[in-house]
């Protein structure tokens, strides 16, 4: 090839590029398509086994459940059920009736058999949803009404405030789609949680292998639900497309939020990088985000040309960040640093809360004091936040026996005849920069009190399993919470520690366990609030966590869309209720 020819080649290709750019520039994206920013892909969209938070959001639009939450009043709404259940006097039997107009995508009506199947599928020991099973432990059985195939009674084991609430989290799935041979209907619920029965029964194993197989996790063709939207495309690493179903029963219904479906298409577009997300919004390529990072949000808020086109708003959430301290370490790989409550209190005093709030969260967050969000009525207002105070922390550490005796700028103490240095590592998830920034600030502040902190960024799964198996010194993360009545047994009960559950720290004694039980079994609201306040007091005294800050939701919505309402509850903005501005 001569250089002359090459020059021509280059010229022509440049020309081609420019024309293509012009052509593309003219093309705006289709009307009535909502483009939503997501920060990470859901790991899967399995109807029962999936665990990622984003899956729960997608389920809001693609699935229906018996009951849903009314985001304005924070109360229960009947969704698939005709009305809220009729409760028996002992609080154990809940009778529901399914609405008449409901039908699945294949036009078959929704019946009580589907609810029974959903329960069995969730409770079956072979289903790969071990982390979620506990929510179903209280369900004993579903009894279908002999005369009315749409009416059924849910039998529970114990009375509990959550007995109705838990239905909001779990979509009802179609039996004819997920269990073509009706295998589960031949077994009773009790049989499905009996491992000796399951060992003998081949049919259930075949069903479970099929039900747990990858296609139900990530293939849109095998995703099925009762909601007004359907997942039609999942372009891995790029986007997930939800399309409005052509004639869904919600078509003529605008009563509740879950009936609405204005946008024809919702595209959830993945962008993991803050800066390029920012550029996409500035270029008008995206419509909605609720998770832009705080720094970028502050930048957008002050940009006049941007706020002309977009609404930027901060909304409160019930979520909070915390640092868990290992109260019962093994003493070998992890030294007994935080066994003393004085030390834990001193640690809480060494965290520069205001500085973190300013540098990482742009002063958008509030202090968290106990495991209950200050927004909730259960919050104990008598508790005062522990403030940043190095001198007092040093005094407390000295009182607990930690002193720098050898002059190496690290505190030490003789424990069981062995000199232990006050140095430890702090675990956090590597996916987001905010954790790294917070950890660096804490490390700098601790260093002033002669404590050496190592940063240990971890991948999500590794982080969780390290925390659950008590393999950490300090572990920093966030909990997502909701309007539902709080169930403390998962995070704070001693059994949850001994079985490697979510009680990471080893908090608790017989008194706290008894308190948690009485909170759970209490149906009367005012009494429950009183007990919850007592429990907060207990946690506050023990300080197993350093409670950091509440989290704010950073809502950015294009002014092309109206009907915007922002809720405290996840996901903050209901995408199906957004309506295109004419």
């Amino acid at each position: 090839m001569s250089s002359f020819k090459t020059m021509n080649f280059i010229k022509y290709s440049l020309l081609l590029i420019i024309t293509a750019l012009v052509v593309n520039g003219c093309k705006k994206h289709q009307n009535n398509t909502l483009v939503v920013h997501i920060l990470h892909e859901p790991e899967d969209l399995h109807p029962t086994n999936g665990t990622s938070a984003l899956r729960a959001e997608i389920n809001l639009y693609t699935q229906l459940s018996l009951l849903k939450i009314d985001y304005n009043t924070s109360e229960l709404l009947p969704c698939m059920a005709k009305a809220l259940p009729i409760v028996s006097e002992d609080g154990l039997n809940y009778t529901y009736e399914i609405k008449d107009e409901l039908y699945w995508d294949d036009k078959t009506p929704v019946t009580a058999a589907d609810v029974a199947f959903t329960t069995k599928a969730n409770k079956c020991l072979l289903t790969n949803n071990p982390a979620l099973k506990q929510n179903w432990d209280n369900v004993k059985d579903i009894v279908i009404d002999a005369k009315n195939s749409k009416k059924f009674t849910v039998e529970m084991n114990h009375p509990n405030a959550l007995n109705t609430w838990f239905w909001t989290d779990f979509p009802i799935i179609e039996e004819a789609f997920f269990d073509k041979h009706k295998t589960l209907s031949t077994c009773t619920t009790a049989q499905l949680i009996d491992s000796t029965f399951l060992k003998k029964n081949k049919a259930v194993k075949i069903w479970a292998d099929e039900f747990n197989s990858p296609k139900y996790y990530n293939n849109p063709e095998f995703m099925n639900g009762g909601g007004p939207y359907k997942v039609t495309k999942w372009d891995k690493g790029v986007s997930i497309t939800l399309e409005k179903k052509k004639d869904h029963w919600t078509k003529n219904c605008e009563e509740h939020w879950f009936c609405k479906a204005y946008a024809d298409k919702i595209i959830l577009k993945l962008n993991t990088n803050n800066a390029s997300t920012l550029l996409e919004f500035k270029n008008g390529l995206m419509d909605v985000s609720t998770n832009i990072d705080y720094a970028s949000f502050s930048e957008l808020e002050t940009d006049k040309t941007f706020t002309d086109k977009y609404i930027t708003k901060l909304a409160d959430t019930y979520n909070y960040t915390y640092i868990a301290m290992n109260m019962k370490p093994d003493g070998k790989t992890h030294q007994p640093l935080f066994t003393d409550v004085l030390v834990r209190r001193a640690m809480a005093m060494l965290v520069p809360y205001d500085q973190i709030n300013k540098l990482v969260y742009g002063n958008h967050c509030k202090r968290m004091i106990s495991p209950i969000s200050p927004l909730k009525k259960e919050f104990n207002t008598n508790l005062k936040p522990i403030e940043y105070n190095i001198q007092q922390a040093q005094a407390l550490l000295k009182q607990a026996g930690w002193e720098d005796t050898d002059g190496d700028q690290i505190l030490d103490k003789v424990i069981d005849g062995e000199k232990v240095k006050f140095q430890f590592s702090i675990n956090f998830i590597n996916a987001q920069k905010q954790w790294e920034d917070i950890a660096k600030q804490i490390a700098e502040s601790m260093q002033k009190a002669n404590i050496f902190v190592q940063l240990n960024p971890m991948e999500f799964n590794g982080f969780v399993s390290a925390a659950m198996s008590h393999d950490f010194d300090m572990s920093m993360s966030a909990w997502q919470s909701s309007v539902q009545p709080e169930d403390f047994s998962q995070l704070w009960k001693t059994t949850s520690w001994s079985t490697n559950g979510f009680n990471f720290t080893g908090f608790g004694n017989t008194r706290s366990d008894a308190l948690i039980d009485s909170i759970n079994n209490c149906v009367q609201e005012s009494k429950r609030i009183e007990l919850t306040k007592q429990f907060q007091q207990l946690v506050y005294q023990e300080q197993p966590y350093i409670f950091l800050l509440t989290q704010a939701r950073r809502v950015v919505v294009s002014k092309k869309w109206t009907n915007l309402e922002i809720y405290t509850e996840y996901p903050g903005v209901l995408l199906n209720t957004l309506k295109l501005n004419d």
Partner: protein
Amino acid sequence: MPTLVAVTIISFMLLSSAPGDPVNSMVSVSNSGGGLKSSNDIEIQKNYWRKQLGLNLPLFYFSIHKLSEPDTLYKISNEAQLQQINERIKITGGYKNYIPKFVWYGFHNQYHRWLFGGNGSKGIIRGDFGLSYSKKVPVMEIITDKIGWSLFFSLLSIILAYAISIPLGIKIAEQPTSSFSRVSQTFLFLLYSVPAFFMGVLLLMLFANPDVISIFPPSGIKPTEGYSDSASFLEKLIDSLPYIVLPLICYTYSSIAFITRLTTTSINEQLPLDYIKTAKAKGLSNRQLIYKHALKNSVLPLITVFTSVFPSIVGGSVIIESIFTIPGMGLETVRSITSQDYPFVIALITLSACMTILSYLIADILNAWIDPRVRKSLSNKF
């Protein structure tokens, strides 16, 4: 071939000895809230997956271990339990801890299963790289999903680089003293030293930023809508064109600098040789000299460079992909490593080792095709 086997053994051993329980990520762990009443549920699922993945088999055909260790230690999967046993062996083993013992496990082992199949796996010789730990889908599926864009960029960039830099290199060699040559040589040398991530971030900052110039979209690889279903390849290409430009520049600039330099030097090496002098004496112009004689003989190093691109097709470019959010192999690689998705990592290492060996082979064949001297030495070799 022996190289390939060695590479797979090394990577297999390395990753099997990595810490962490691989089935942890197979079992769904709740992201928010959630809780566990009994760890029994989790153990049932874990054991199921262990069997499914063949992790209950011994690692290799044989093992050399301490006399005090039981032969069936591999069957214990619980890490805490394993640690206890190891500690007990350490204390009670005594002299037996220092005597080696050779155990032959036969063909029922993880490596054999991985290579040739069995126990529900087809083995890599039939294209089955096993199940991804973190995504629960076959590794091959992920690779076919992701390799498209990496392949596209690698090939396009190398073609572009050659199309630009060979004529450029010739031009520089033709008139080595002209100001054009001097300027472009210096410029290319500077360009060669610019790190790709610096270039990428600069390009984004300058050309996709409404505050400066906004010609190109800042991220992704195709329009948000995706392509229309009926779009032909060309239509897809045109749709994606604005998205391609910036990453392509990033992929290409350093190879342009490198190949141009290579072309120039290898032609320059030919010029003082006798046959060129003879040709010059015949009265050929500088240009004719290069095109007719020198170029043909200086093509060897260019071929070597061309084939060396092959392995990078599998690996993709971590940096460029992460800057421009391209769903390619590079990002997938980092994801798989940080989430301990070892079947995927081993598959990657094996594939790129294959590619390397393939590239040697192709380079040899091409060289033989062009250079009769090499052909002769090759035929001697085989």
